[in-house]
């Protein structure tokens, strides 16, 4: 078990900088999730920690020891690949024990460790199968088993669920969460699925274009996003954003309506432009809203338990409102969506949060 620390870690391919000065500290036993849009550098960052990618500048340490020049196999990490990367000509047992056999461990120890991992992952019956004779979910478990057998200080996962169907993905997600609970190792997990991130993580690292946008517990990111990007990325459906103008001290005008500003009067000059964010699920939750906004309904999505009302504000900006009970609401109708001022977030023209 170990602390993983990155100090000004940087990665460039030739003249192109992919990772810019990332500072990060993942505590012992923590489950950290890297999220971000495709191409933002999640895999690259993970592979730098694994040692599969060299570090251009800065320092990575695991368990207090600088590992920039340590061989991947000696960093005490195990990785689960998106493609599983199982050795196709080896059986399940051979796959899981490969590292130990190469490391010339005693046979009794190898058998013991493989048996333990197989029991945890219910792979006992499949020991002599080859990867081609396994289902996707089983391959996934073998890949995780191979990582467990190595008894690493840090587990690294690169989008391990993206090749599974929706049902299996949820089940395996739960398995991984349980595994973390029982093993207690530090785990770093890459995904672009914010639901996976929210459900699994102790801490989420939101990445964008090779920079850390925010780092913190899931609820903290949900409640207190530092910027528009994080606010929009965390949560589903996405947070609604509206253009606002600071009227006079303490008042914001959005779509022709005026509201008390959700930030202190000192932080914004009258006349400056701001972005106001409200999550779909934060509308109409309270019988006594602080304010309401007029919404022209475009169409309604019924999900059973809840419904999403897609509509437009008076000035044409799009909005999604989540309601439990919509009755027979039709498109073309107008509704009033109420909200509490404590649920409103505001961002300046550069996208940074203003409080």
């Amino acid at each position, binding site marked *: 078990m170990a602390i993983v620390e990155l100090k000004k870690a940087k990665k460039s391919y030739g003249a192109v900088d992919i990772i810019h000065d990332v500072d990060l500290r993942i505590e012992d036993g923590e489950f950290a999730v890297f999220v971000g849009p495709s191409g933002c550098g999640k895999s690259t960052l993970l592979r730098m920690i*694994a*040692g*599969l990618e060299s570090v251009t500048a800065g320092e990575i340490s695991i368990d207090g020891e600088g590992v920039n020049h340590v*061989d*991947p*196999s*000696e960093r005490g*990490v*195990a*990785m689960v*690949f998106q*493609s599983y*990367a*199982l*050795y*196709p*000509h080896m059986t399940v047992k051979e796959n899981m024990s*490969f*590292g130990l056999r*190469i*490391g010339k461990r005693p046979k009794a120890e190898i058998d013991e460790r493989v048996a333990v991992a197989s029991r945890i992952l219910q792979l006992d019956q499949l020991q002599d199968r*080859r990867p081609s004779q396994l289902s996707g979910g089983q391959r996934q478990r073998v890949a995780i088993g*191979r990582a467990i057998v*190595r008894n690493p200080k840090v587990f690294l996962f690169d989008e391990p669920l993206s090749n599974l169907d929706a049902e299996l993905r949820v089940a395996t997600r739960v398995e991984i969460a349980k595994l973390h609970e029982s093993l207690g190792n530090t785990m770093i997990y890459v995904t672009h699925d914010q639901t996976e991130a929210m459900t699994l993580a102790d801490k989420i690292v939101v990445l964008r274009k090779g920079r850390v946008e925010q780092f913190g517990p899931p609820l903290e990111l949900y409640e207190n996003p530092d910027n528009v990007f994080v606010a929009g990325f965390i949560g589903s459906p996405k947070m609604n954003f509206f253009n606002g103008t600071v009227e006079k001290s303490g008042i914001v005008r959005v779509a022709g309506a005026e509201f008390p500003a959700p930030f202190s009067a000192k932080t914004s000059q009258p006349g400056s432009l701001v972005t106001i964010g409200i999550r779909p699920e934060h509308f109409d939750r309270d019988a006594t809203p602080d304010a309401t906004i007029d919404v022209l309904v475009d169409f309604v999505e019924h999900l059973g338990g809840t419904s999403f009302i897609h509509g437009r504000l008076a000035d044409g900006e799009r909005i999604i409102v989540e309601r439990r009970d919509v009755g027979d609401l039709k498109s073309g109708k107008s509704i009033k969506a109420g909200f509490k001022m404590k649920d409103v977030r505001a961002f300046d023209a550069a996208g940074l949060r203003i409080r």
Partner: protein
Amino acid sequence: MLLPACAIVAFFLLLPFVLSFPMSLTNRRLIPRPVRFVGFDNYIQVLTDPIFWRALFNVTYFTVLVVPVQCGFALAMALLINQKIPGRNFFRGALFLPAITSIAVVCVIWGTLFQYPTGPLNQIIGFLTFGLAGPIDWLGNPNSSMPAIVLLSAWQAYGFQMVVYLAGLQGIPGDLYEAARLDGASTWQRFRFVTWPGLRQTNIFVIIITTIQAFKLFTQVNILTQGGPRDSTVTVVQYMYSVGFVGQKLGLASAVAIILFFIVLVISLVQRAVLRDPK
């Protein structure tokens, strides 16, 4: 769409092959003459000719040497040009050059290299051994003539195998190597446990193709040694050629062709069965 291709294949490949069987049962000659059915006489004559057996032995010897040398070299070069080295495309092109060079040109080049006693190869050997190893009469000595042919044949033809190996190497997923690195596998172990098993199908293909090619050895020998010295480089195809075109006995030559076909067929089938994944 397929019809023209099929027609061409049928007319130029299948038809001559099918026709050669009835021809092998006649005394047909190169010049037009009345043809007589002779049954299996031609086959008996071939199979009782010591030169044929010598040719078969030679070509087997050639194959046993050239397959590992040529495939091994091709694999080594494929591994080399599969690396991320600067000038990789230059090497890829340069290493493929011999394969597109006419075999006749290759023979002239190597004929010069092999010259006795002062050819470049002998000079290099003399230089490297401080004159201890005397000059070798590469093509003139029955002991070294076949190995010399092996050397030049492998050099000329490895490009094709190299390209096939390269394709095979690129078909092995890169993350297997990364997983093996994380598992602590050394470079050699990564080759042994990832590359080598990953090339299984490629190997089967390459070895069978090379074997078939080797059994058809002819041009090099015909240009450089004409089967000599002392029949040490006589090959089956060369035997067929001398019977058919020099001796003008087409029926007899057809019998040799049919026999060679079945030998190659059996060997390929056996190789495939042996090399196939046991599980």
